[in-house]
């Protein structure tokens, strides 16, 4: 019960009619506002109010109305086994609770109202995550209700050290935001800093986790994300265990994880459940793909425009034959193809699945044989575009993949002007920016620059699990030891 000094006009009266009048005024434009005047078994007059569609009606019937009317002798005796209840003294409190999906009971002669937690809004069933599919990971994804998401996390970590802090963000939306971390592992300075940043947000409403990220990230202007957004509970829990914090945003199926480094976006949950040699190969493949995505089209342009002498003669001849009919310089050719590829991708994302197939067919024809036969682009360019597209899809994180895809356009321009020199300097610029970035005080380029060899066992490759005794240093965790000798026998 709150003990704030009640305001004169909005105090709860002991007459039901006056309270009802006040509420009716407040909820004049809310047709879903419902009130039930009842007489309890003990003969008291009572009033139950709620907003129709965001409450659990069955629960109200079974656990509030039925006991009141037929079972309990007096209201003070009533025990509601499931719901959390609290008392309110002011109409404002009642109003706020009603909007949050609670129901409120007034009793004749009492100057307070009882609030019942009876939320029952529409919910989506737990499904497999759409954007991060894995082969061997769990097939449970987060949903739009924060409470459910926290429940899933608790199933993984039923431990007292799993701390959940809650905040309210948004002046109108009042979105509930929860920060989760392992209290004995995470660095308290990082948590405090994050808390500050969350409380600093004073906007209308947070509709998606991605919006919150933009307010609390270190470098929102960068092309690369510094906080991970994930739909996967298992990924989130793995990150908590590595010493990171997680933020679960109500109304969004994405959770935010930080502090991240660039290389940590190349990890996937699958890596830890496939055999470690194969997982290591996949890791190397991803870094290679990242590099290819950024440089391959620009390398093509540089090699054709400036440095054809680096190509062996046979290859040069076959490229020359395929470019014979093409009337454009390589940069136009490349820009046309890369832009049309991006358009196909963007169209594919927004279209519903049945029409989506059309895009595949049309795109396949345009990017494929037709463009070559018409003499608009060369065969080699088609190969370059295809390899670039495939490589960009290998990068497991969507945000990093999109960033890399965008970087290749300035790289193509710089290669047109400066050739290979442009590519080398372009890479220097990209990495100088990455190295200058920080995620919550931790260098974003870690562990490759600054070099931290101890973190390399879970970066370029994945060492066997029993070799990884320590949490990554880039999370700056307080408790660094992750496990003790966990494997018996001579492999240790």
């Amino acid at each position, binding site marked *: 019960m709150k003990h704030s000094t009640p305001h004169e006009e909005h105090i709860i009266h002991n007459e039901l009619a006056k309270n009802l009048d006040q509420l009716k005024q407040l909820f004049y434009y809310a047709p879903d506002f419902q009130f039930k005047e009842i007489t309890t078994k003990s003969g008291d007059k009572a009033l139950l109010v709620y907003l129709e569609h965001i409450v659990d009606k069955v629960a109200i019937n079974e656990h509030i109305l039925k006991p009141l009317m037929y079972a309990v002798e007096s209201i003070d005796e009533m025990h509601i086994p499931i719901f959390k209840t609290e008392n309110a003294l002011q109409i404002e409190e009642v109003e706020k609770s009603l909007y949050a999906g609670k129901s409120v009971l007034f009793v004749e002669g009492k100057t307070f109202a009882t609030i019942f937690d009876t939320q029952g809004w529409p919910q989506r069933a737990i499904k497999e995550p759409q954007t991060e599919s894995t082969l061997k990971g769990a097939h449970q994804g987060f949903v739009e209700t924060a409470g459910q998401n926290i429940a899933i996390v608790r199933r993984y970590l039923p431990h007292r050290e799993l701390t959940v802090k809650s905040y309210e963000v948004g002046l109108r939306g009042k979105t509930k935001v929860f920060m989760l971390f392992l209290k004995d592992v995470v660095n308290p300075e990082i948590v405090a800093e994050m808390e500050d940043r969350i409380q600093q947000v004073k906007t209308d409403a947070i509709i998606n986790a991605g919006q919150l990220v933009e307010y609390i990230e270190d470098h929102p202007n960068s092309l690369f994300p510094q906080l991970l957004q994930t739909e996967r509970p298992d990924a989130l829990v793995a990150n908590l265990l590595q010493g990171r914090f997680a933020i679960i945003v109500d109304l969004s199926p994405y959770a935010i994880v930080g502090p991240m480094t660039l290389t940590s976006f190349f990890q996937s949950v699958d890596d830890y459940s496939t055999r470690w040699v194969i997982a290591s190969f996949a890791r190397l493949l991803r870094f290679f793909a990242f590099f290819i995505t950024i440089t391959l089209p620009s390398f093509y342009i540089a090699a054709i425009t400036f*440095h054809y*002498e680096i190509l*062996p003669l046979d290859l040069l001849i076959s490229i020359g034959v395929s470019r014979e009919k093409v009337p454009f310089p390589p940069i136009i050719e490349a820009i046309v193809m890369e832009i049309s590829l991006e358009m196909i991708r963007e169209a594919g994302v927004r279209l519903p699945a049945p029409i989506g197939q059309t895009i595949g067919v049309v795109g396949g024809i345009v990017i494929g044989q037709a463009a070559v036969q018409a003499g608009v682009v060369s065969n080699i360019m088609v190969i370059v575009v295809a390899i670039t597209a495939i490589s960009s899809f290998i990068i497991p994180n969507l945000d990093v993949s999109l960033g890399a895809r965008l970087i290749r356009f300035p790289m193509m321009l710089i290669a047109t002007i400066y050739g*290979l*020199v442009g590519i080398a300097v372009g890479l*220097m610029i990209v990495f*100088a920016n990455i190295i200058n970035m920080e995620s919550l005080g931790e260098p974003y380029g870690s562990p490759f620059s600054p*070099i931290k060899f101890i973190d390399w066992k879970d970066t370029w490759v994945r060492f066997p699990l029993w070799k990884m005794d320590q949490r990554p240093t880039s999370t700056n965790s307080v408790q660094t030891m992750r496990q003790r000798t966990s494997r018996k026998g001579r492999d240790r």
Partner: protein
Amino acid sequence: MSKYTTNQLTLSQFVIFIYKTQIGVGVLTLPRLVSENANRDGWISVILGIAISLTVSILIIKIMEKHPEMTLYDILPLYFGKWLGRFFIFIWIAWTLAASTTAFLATIFITQMWLLPKSSSILIGALFLVPIYLTAKEGVRNISSFFQFVFLSTIWMEFTLLYSGGGSQILNFLPIGADGITPIIKGALVFLPSCFGFEIALFLYPFLKNKKQAIKGVLIAHALTFNISFMLIVLCFLKYSQEEIQLFVFPTLNLLKEIQLPFIERLEIPFLAIYLMVMLSTAISYLYISLFGMAQFTQKRSHIPFLWIAMVFWLIILFSVNFSFRHLQQVERIWQKNIVFIPLVFPILLLIYIKIHHFVQQRRHTP
């Protein structure tokens, strides 16, 4: 508390900062320069040169150990008083700026000569200024992180060089020491500018987290530099005769020309493009030390305004001078003969001066 504790370096950052300052444009011309002076005994010159450089570096660490929280810019006024101290600071700022400018201009010249013969030097220079600005505007820690990135992404180059070793003539090394000791010493002196960069320790020492590792760091940096220089000299001498080497301007690139892969001919072109990172690192390193000095000289907190001035200064040079091969030779001569002895002789003299200073002070205090 020292004012440099916010920007601390680990051992590996310290090592790579020095190493990346040492290795630069010099590597490309090194075999020719050494061969011109020491002939087929060039490899001995390299060993001798590294030994000299290492000795001076250790002396530098000895100087810095007396004032672990200070850079050279702080130490000089302490011993020489305000005006003389400022004069010496000015000399160091000028020297590092000159070194940086030389590295920058040489990089542009080489790029123009080998990679982009039709582009104007100002266009290339403008491109190079972007990464230089992005790194030099940061502190020591971020710069050394950047050098670590450069180190990791160019480490394959050393192994590629080994691939050129086919068809070698071991007889090229014989006879050993036929011309006496003088050419060897001459060769060592010519090799020394390629080792320059060790004097960076004069400014990096207070940033190092664990001061006890300083000597170890200098040792590792010199080992890395020795490794690449010695390997280059040996490979070049195995492959070519002395007459051939002295004909080439950049023997290292000629060595790379020998390598032909099934998918890339003329490996030296992509190699040189990526090697630009290393050459620009030298420029960035010296530039930062110079800017750092300027900020301290004028008692400003930020060095970024000076960075802009330096960049404009460079662009003006590029506008006004039309580079040719003759310029490169002139610069080479200046480096070999004149100002090069600042990093070499200055620390030794400083150490002697400090010893005398302490001695006199002790005499004064204990009558």
